[in-house]
């Protein structure tokens, strides 16, 4: 970081990171590492929607995909999130990030620019935006209360930076150079390959003359062929040569500009740039959950346990599904669960399309998002800081692998169970559906025996009711239907014994594909 040079400068307090208390805060750059379970849990949908086309996509995705193993880091992020829940501060932060993005876009384009005059103009523009961004952010951050370790440290740093003589000089120089350039007008004449550049001496608009000359032919309105030109960064070598000649015509203005660029070559403060990058993690996540909150869904800062497996969540939901439903204006059904010793396994059974898969996903998402330091879906939660998460969801048959589906399933399940430790979480969804009921019962029993032996936290979704009474470590939960209308689901998954009703034929009826209905539809 550049040290301000003048006598009036004071020591600027250090700023380490907005992501963790230690100096090694910035977790990652480069390709985000996606956990194997991301797609089963629809975590990839969440991450892609959060990171979307943001410039820091990889940083955001990397942080969201990464489960932190340190509870203090999680608290540190919770604090920053809580501060940013102030709408005024959030808006100021968002505006700052957008301006800094524009600065970065400009600076990243400079090396590609071949003309010095061109590069200088673009550099000046970047600096002008930067000055405005930093001042505006300071005003915003002062006008709103902050309490997090991360933002307090940054505010102290920013105050010191703005008061420094270095910044004052930068701001004044930038404004003068901008004024100079705005006053320039010049003339170009193009004749085949020949180009002539001169001062503009105030001749009238020739287009108007031409229009006037031909106006007698005018019959009525015609299609508008005028092209609308967009300004794009970049300059041809011809444009650059013209600009060089303009610079000779306006020598004073351009030599002042060149001098400016030399003196302020490194205007962007590294700590402020880092703050900006890291801030986007928070802004992206909050932007994603804000519409959900507006739709009445709760997010909470979960208590994170490192030893107890007595976990719970209230009013929780599948975040990816909720984002989709909320976007469509539909309502989201929330669920609860709790595990008290010695309970470890939730076996979910009951009618199809009743929210079983959604429940399983929500359980997995909770544990993952909590470990990324994010607020999680629900009004309150206590969650276990697990070392690994394993999922097994029904897959499409993949012909690239000649191994049959069941064998493939079993090999994958075996791999997960052999790799799991007592601190792992396992989620299995409707496995063994492509085999017979007796196979599914036999294999499901084997899975639960191993899960219990390992003391794993586990959600197991199945159509095999017998598995719900496997033992004291197992809690039975079931999807439910509207009483009196078996085809209508509540999407509530509640603690209750498996009741053996699958409602499949009622469902066929609902879709009008029972024999009678189908016959009517096919033979009109």
């Amino acid at each position, binding site marked *: 970081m550049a040290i301000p040079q003048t006598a009036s400068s004071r020591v600027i307090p250090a700023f380490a990171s907005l992501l963790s208390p230690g100096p090694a805060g910035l977790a990652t750059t480069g390709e985000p590492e996606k956990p194997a379970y991301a797609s089963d849990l629809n975590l990839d949908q969440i991450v892609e929607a959060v990171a979307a086309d943001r410039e820091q996509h990889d940083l955001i995705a990397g942080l969201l995909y990464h489960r932190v193993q340190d509870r203090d880091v999680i608290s540190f992020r919770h604090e920053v999130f809580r501060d940013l829940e102030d709408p005024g501060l959030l808006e100021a932060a968002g505006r700052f990030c957008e301006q800094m993005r524009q600065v970065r876009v400009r600076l990243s384009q400079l090396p590609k620019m071949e003309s010095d005059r061109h590069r200088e103009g673009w550099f000046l523009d970047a600096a002008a935006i930067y000055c405005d961004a930093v001042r505006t952010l300071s005003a915003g951050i002062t006008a709103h209360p902050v309490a997090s370790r991360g933002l307090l440290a940054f505010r102290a740093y920013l105050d010191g930076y703005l008061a420094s003589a270095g910044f004052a000089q930068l701001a004044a120089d930038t404004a003068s150079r901008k004024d100079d350039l705005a006053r320039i007008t010049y003339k170009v004449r193009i004749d085949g390959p020949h180009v002539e550049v001169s001062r503009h001496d105030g001749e009238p608009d020739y287009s108007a003359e031409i229009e006037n000359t031909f106006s007698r032919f005018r019959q009525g309105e015609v299609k508008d062929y005028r092209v609308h030109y967009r300004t794009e960064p970049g300059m041809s070598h011809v444009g650059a040569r013209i600009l060089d000649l303009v610079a000779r015509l306006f020598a004073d203005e351009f030599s002042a500009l060149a001098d400016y660029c030399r003196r302020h070559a490194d205007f962007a403060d590294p700590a402020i740039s880092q703050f900006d990058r890291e801030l986007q993690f928070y802004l992206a996540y909050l932007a994603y959950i804000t519409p959900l909150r507006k739709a009445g869904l709760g997010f909470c800062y979960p208590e994170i346990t490192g030893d107890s497996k007595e976990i719970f969540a209230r009013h929780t939901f599948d975040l990816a599904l909720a984002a989709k439903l909320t976007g469509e204006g539909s309502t989201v059904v929330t669920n609860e669960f709790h595990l008290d010793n010695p309970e470890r396994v939730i076996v979910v059974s009951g009618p*199809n399309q009743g929210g079983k898969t959604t429940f399983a996903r929500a359980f997995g998402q909770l544990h993952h998002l909590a470990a990324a330091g994010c607020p999680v879906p629900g009004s309150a939660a206590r969650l276990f800081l697990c070392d690994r998460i394993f999922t097994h969801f029904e897959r499409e048959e993949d012909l690239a692998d000649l191994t049959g589906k069941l064998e493939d399933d079993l090999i994958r399940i075996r791999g997960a169970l052999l790799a799991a430790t007592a601190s792992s979480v396992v989620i299995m969804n409707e496995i063994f559906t492509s085999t017979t009921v007796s196979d599914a019962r036999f294999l499901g029993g084997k899975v639960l025996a191993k899960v219990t032996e390992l003391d794993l936290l586990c959600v197991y979704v199945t159509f095999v009711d017998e598995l719900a009474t496997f033992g004291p470590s197992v809690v039975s939960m079931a999807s439910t239907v509207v009483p009196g209308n078996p085809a209508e689901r509540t999407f509530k998954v509640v603690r209750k014994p498996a009741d053996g009703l699958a409602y499949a034929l009622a469902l066929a009826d609902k879709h009008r594909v029972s024999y009678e209905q189908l016959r009517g539809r096919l033979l009109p």
Partner: protein
Amino acid sequence: MKAHLLHPDQDFDFSADLPAGHEDLVQDLELGTVLQAMAAGDKFLLGVSTKVLLASLNDPGTIGYRQRVLADCIAQPDIVRQIYGVAVAAMQDRRGLWGYSSQYPSSILSAAVTQLEALVARLRELRGLADEHAGTFQSDGLTTLLRSLQRDLDDDYFETLRRHLRQLRFRGGVPMSARLDRDNSGIGYVLRASGARRTWKERIGIAPRTVYSFSIPPRDEAGAQALSNMTSRAINLVANAAAQSADHVISYFSMLRAELGFYVSCLNLHDRLTAAGHPVAFPGSSAAEPWELRCEDLRDASLALRTGRVVGNDVDADGKSLVIITGANSGGKSTFLRSVGQAQLMMQCGMFVTARSLRSSVCRQVFTHFIREEDPAMVSGRLDEELTRMSVIADRIGPRCLILFNESFAATNEREGSEIGRQVVRALLEAGIRVFFVTHQFDFADSFHRQRAQETLFLRAPRQPDGQRTYRLTVAEPLPTSYGEDIYHRIGGWLAESA
């Protein structure tokens, strides 16, 4: 001028949407692999093959028309690829010269002229090829095409084109004023009456210079383009007419490239399959009832393209409206199902099939209903999703259609899954629809064995006594077993007690 290589008397409609439900077909039948092989890395060919393959023909006459063109292509692949190459080159000229600069009026004019010059050169090449190979082909499609090239592109016509192109060049110098944008590039161009005038003091060197000039070298095309972009603001109204003529010629090359592209794609696939030793044959198609399907060594083309170890099936399903395939997991059931669907589509677009021989009835449309991963859009649970898809199919399917089920309705227990399957299949059969059904649900398969044995063909993926699976299906009734426990022990289990 027309290509007319896909229909004897009309253009192929490449602008038509793919048939409803095509995503399911492509995914379930793994047509992606076949289409990739046809495309051989060419995105355009991928698009063409996809459209033609999925837009099934229903009449054996047009199927034969295409088969004969394709047979010509297979006999003379080099000539066909040469003609195709001209069309491709013409379209590539277009990409190079057209497009990006069209925001600038001056470029529209100069590009349109340059474009027309390039297109005329390609038309000359095409005429040359037609002169050289006019007598080579037998099929109606290709002989008619070459003859029309010779007739419509005669020498007088080329002379007329040359004269017009010379007149379309724009000349003149344009003076304009400008200001500096945020990045110091020129902005705010306004056309002015004249260029700079130096005072006498400046000319004799006693006043500061107010005029500078330079010239770009004659080969500096980028520079010329830049200047053209600048002048375009002044000539915004001049340039529109030449462009449309170019577009007409382009649309001819576009159609030729697309229709011929399908046959080039077929050649690509043909090369891949035959090089790997897989059989290919032109199928016999018939429109008549009852249902025909008889094949020798029918192979899953997507699997054949991906791996060497492919086993073909000999099946005689003539007269059978229902084919139920049961048996061991990993036993080649899905593979066979896919090969049937692929062959039907390949036949009905005029292509060869991956078999030593095949004869099949033309069907109105092919449908698939395969077990799926949980809906990524999360609208519904699995059985619900399957029934939703079934209901969508019911809206479209009708008599003389073919539907392929793969492990459908298995997302619930066996008893209920079997019952749903029975009801659906019964209704489909009664509507005159042909059904292929891969299932492990014994209850389902067995009930058709008991009730509809006459119209049903039962195939089974067998398991050898040593536990090995072969992938060749045999005619055999369903068995009430599955193999989950075997596999569990074979892979070594995960509990100490079961070792």
